[in-house]
Each structure stands twice: as C-alpha cells, then as structure tokens.
C-alpha cells in the first residue's frame, strides 16, 4: 500500500466508518423520538482522549456532510485548543466548511455554552456530555436510576435542590441544572450553565447530546418544552450578572471572570467570543459611520490646516 507524498492516508468521510455512523444515527433517531431519554450506543475510539468530547465528536461525525458549516466552541470560545483542534479535524476528515460565526453555522459542537446569538431552524447543537445521568450523585446504581426514569419516579432529584437551599439559602446549582423534557424525562443539560437553560425551552434548533465515555446519546428536538426544576417558594432562577461585558459592553450575556493581575484584579468579559467580537465590530462600524457623516468636513479642515 503506498500513498503519494503529501497525500493523507484516506479516511472515510467524517472519520468513522459507515456502519458506525449508521449505528449512531439510529441512536440519534431514537433519542429524537423520545426527548430526554438516554439511548445507549456503542461508543468508538476517536483520536482524542475520553472526557475531551469524544461523544460530541462522534455525533458530529455521524451527522456532518460536505454542505455543512461547523462551529466548535469550548466554554464560549472559538479559539481554545480543543475547539481549534476539533474544527481542524472535521475540516480535514469531513471536508466541512468551518466558521466561528453562530449565524453561519449549521452544526455547532459545544462543551459548555449555548451561543448568545439566537439559534434558528435548521441549526443543530452537539453537546459533549461528561455525565449524562442527572441522578448519578444521588443514586449511584445505574440499574436503579434506569428504573426511576422508566417509572417517572423523580422525587429524589428534588432532594438535591432541597440540600442546596438548606445549605446556601437558595438553589446553588449553577451548571448541569436538571430539567424535565417534554413533560416526561428528567435530563441533565450537560455542564452548560443554568444561565443557558431557558434557551433550550421551545428552541427552534435541534439539540443532540453525546456522552462518549458513558456511551449514551440523548436529544431535545426543536420546539420542545424544557422546564428547569424548582420549588414553589424557590423557583428556578438563571444566573445573573450585575455588570456588562468589559470588552463589548453587552448586558444580559454570560460573563467569564478573567484575572488580570496578582493583586486581585479581575475583569468580566463575554464567554461567547463570537458574540463579543461582532458586538465590538458593530459598535466601531457605527462609530466610523458617524465620523463619516458628521465629522468628515471638520477633519478635512484640520488636515488642511496642518498641511498649511
């Protein structure tokens, strides 16, 4: 077997073989048919360590085609190592176009965040899920949690919320906040911040969750009810931020705390880099056009004076 110089050994499109993709697509179809239900699948080896997003990579590999445009984010950022590598990987093995713009992407693979830009019909979110079972830390037996899902026996999950309120005075769970999907299945929206939970409710996009190490796939189809749990006297409240983004000035977005020195200095900036960049660009474009219209003549005068 010989390959010419400079030519890569040939991969099947999307890296995985066709049988595997078919198996994953079957699991995906089942997951979409039963929103929130964890479908087992035969997770494969992919060229990255388990826990780094192998579930998401397999789901993306199974659904991506040459017409697709892929965006990958880690936390909210397009420029982190994992995001860049996965984007490069699919550009190479699936021939997919890549982008960092949410509005241009057809498939968005993510580790934590749902982008700030509103998702639209036809877009697919792919989540990399570390622990798919929302009851795991309350009931370690998988046989038992599966029964609880089957019988819709979800009293236990409230114990977690109860414990939060008893300890902290409010529900302190800020990520992997449990939700009920379509009025039936209890689901862990993966490690997304609770800030993003409301974006899942009646979302026009398709949301696919892949847990590679745990070998589970689940989904939230478009326009599905996703309700975050809470008590009558302590309802669900997404995180709030008191200040705007230090870079672009956006409010009502999810902020990262960035440590700026070793004297306790911090700044808060958008975790969604695409949103931040575009807000900055739009603002400077607006400023430029204002300059063009109002100050152009003044500036010209000044320049003339200098030359004289």
């Amino acid at each position, binding site marked *: 077997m010989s390959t010419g110089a400079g030519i890569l050994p040939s991969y099947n499109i999307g890296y995985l073989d066709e049988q595997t993709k078919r198996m994953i697509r079957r699991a995906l179809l089942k997951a979409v048919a039963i929103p929130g239900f964890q479908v087992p699948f035969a997770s494969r080896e992919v060229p990255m360590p388990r826990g780094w997003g192998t579930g998401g990579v397999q789901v993306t590999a199974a659904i991506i085609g040459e017409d697709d445009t892929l965006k990958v984010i880690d936390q909210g950022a397009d420029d982190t190592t994992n995001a860049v590598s996965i984007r490069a990987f699919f550009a190479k093995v699936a021939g997919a176009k890549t982008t960092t713009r949410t509005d241009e992407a057809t498939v968005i693979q993510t580790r934590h965040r749902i982008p700030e830009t509103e998702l639209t019909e036809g877009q697919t979110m792919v989540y990399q899920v570390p622990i798919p079972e929302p009851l795991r830390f309350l009931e370690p037996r998988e046989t038992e949690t599966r*029964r609880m899902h089957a*019988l819709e*026996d979800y*009293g236990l999950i409230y114990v977690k919320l*109860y414990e939060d309120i008893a300890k902290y005075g409010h529900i302190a769970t800020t990520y992997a906040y449990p939700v009920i999907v379509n009025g039936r299945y209890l689901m862990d929206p993966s490690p997304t911040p609770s800030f993003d939970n409301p974006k899942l409710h009646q979302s026009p996009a398709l949301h696919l969750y892949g847990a590679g190490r745990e070998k589970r796939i689940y989904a939230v189809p478009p326009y599905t009810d996703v309700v975050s749990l809470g008590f009558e*006297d302590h309802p669900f409240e997404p995180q709030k931020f008191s200040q705007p983004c230090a870079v672009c000035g956006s409010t009502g977005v999810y902020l990262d705390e960035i440590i700026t020195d070793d004297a306790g200095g911090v700044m808060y900036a958008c975790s969604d880099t695409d949103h931040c960049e575009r807000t900055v660009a739009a603002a400077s474009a607006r400023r430029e056009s204002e300059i063009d219209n109002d100050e152009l003549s003044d500036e010209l005068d000044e320049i003339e004076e200098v030359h004289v």
Partner: protein
Amino acid sequence: MSDEMPLLEVRDAGHKYGDRYGCREVSFNLWPGEVLAVVGESGSGKSTLLGTLSQRLSLTEGSIRYRLADGEVVELAELSEARVRRLWRSEWGFVHQNAADGLRMHVSAGGNVGEPLMATGWRHYGKIRAEAAEWLKRVEIPVDRIDDTPASFSGGMRQRLQIARNLVVSPRLVFMDEPTSGLDVSVQARLLDLIRSLVAELGLAVVIVTHDLAVARLISHRTLVMKDGRVIESGLTDRVLDDPQAAYTQLLVSSILQG
C-alpha cells in the same frame, strides 16, 4: 366498616431461593392498627417472609392480598412494578436493621425526612422543611441537627431518623426488620417506647421481625414463631410467651435469661 376487613391476607405464602424454600405455607391476617411480631432464630425465614410480604422478594407460591387505601383489594404479586413503587411511596414503610440501608448517609437529616414528601409531590420548600422539623421533634432528634448528615449521628439517632423518614408520609403498613438490634440496651428501650407510642398514635399496622422475645412482648399484639421456614406457633403475644405450646417455642422462651 372497612376497618372490619384485614389489611393483609396471607395464604400459604412461600419464597424459594433456587430449589430451597426460604419460607413456606405462611398464613395470617393483619388488621389495621395491629402489631404483629415474627420471632425465631436466625435462619428461620423471618427476614425472607418480611421480604416476600413487602414485595422485595418474589412470591413463589400462595397469595398475599392487600387492601389499598381506597378499599380495593389487590393481589400483590399481580401488581405492576409502578404500582408497587407507588405503594412504597404512599402507603408502606420499611425500617431496616442497619439504618445506613434505609437512609441517604450524605444527605442532611431534613433531606432524608423530606425525600418521601418530595416523592409524593410536595414542591414547597418551606412546608417540606417545617414538616421535617416537626418529625425530628417527634422522634426526639434536636431540630438544630436538621442540616447535619446521618453520617454524623449516633446509632440510636440514625434509627430514629429512619423511623421519621418512614412515617412522614403517614403510611398504613410498616415493615420493621430487627429495628432495635445493634443498639445498646438503654437506647433500645427508648426506641421501643417511641415506636410503641407512634404506632398507637397513628394507628399503624406493623410487621416487626425480631429475634428478641422481649421486643415482641413489649410492642406486639400477636406473634408468629418461625422455625425452618414455617410458622410453628401463632397467637396473642402474651399467650404465646406465657404459655408456649410448641416444643421449640418453649425452648425459645426458657432460653431467656431471667433477671
């Protein structure tokens, strides 16, 4: 009127482990508000019987009929798993010998007592907490320990917490598997006192398994004596213990140290 019907009708019930019988040909009626003790030495099939009655073990032969809160009489072995679970949540309790089996050791005391409430649809934190505090008081656990985990409790406190967790949803039938063994004598006495007063107050029906005849005498109305998987004697507790008929029961009664 419905109180004139038994809560539990057991006829020739048996459970097999492989091709060996754990217990067999057990028949009795249990009435609302009645405390039934099952005594016998270890290996006599008491715990197997309790497991079979409570649907934790399958019924190999015979029948167990249970009268639901709405008056309907059902054959337990024919109920779906979902309905059995609903019974567990709303009408039954199970007090384990080892409190760690019946509690979530790393969830606070309040969470442990509140869990059955949340499982039956309570969704108001303030009310759940108030009810949990009320029950801690009833089982003599200081209310300021409500946010501590049972892992930090003494054996007697854990057992009382387990009882609170089981009784908080006002069950109609409670199974107890050696609830006092493993505790020292003074703690045992207080726990028995507590169980006796709660049972009387709430009108519970209880099936209690014990190897300790003193426990049976203190809290039960009727007693079944088991040996080798069969019931060899049954009757009012005082009658069985004061005037044992079967040779084995006589041996059992005479083996108690007299003070």
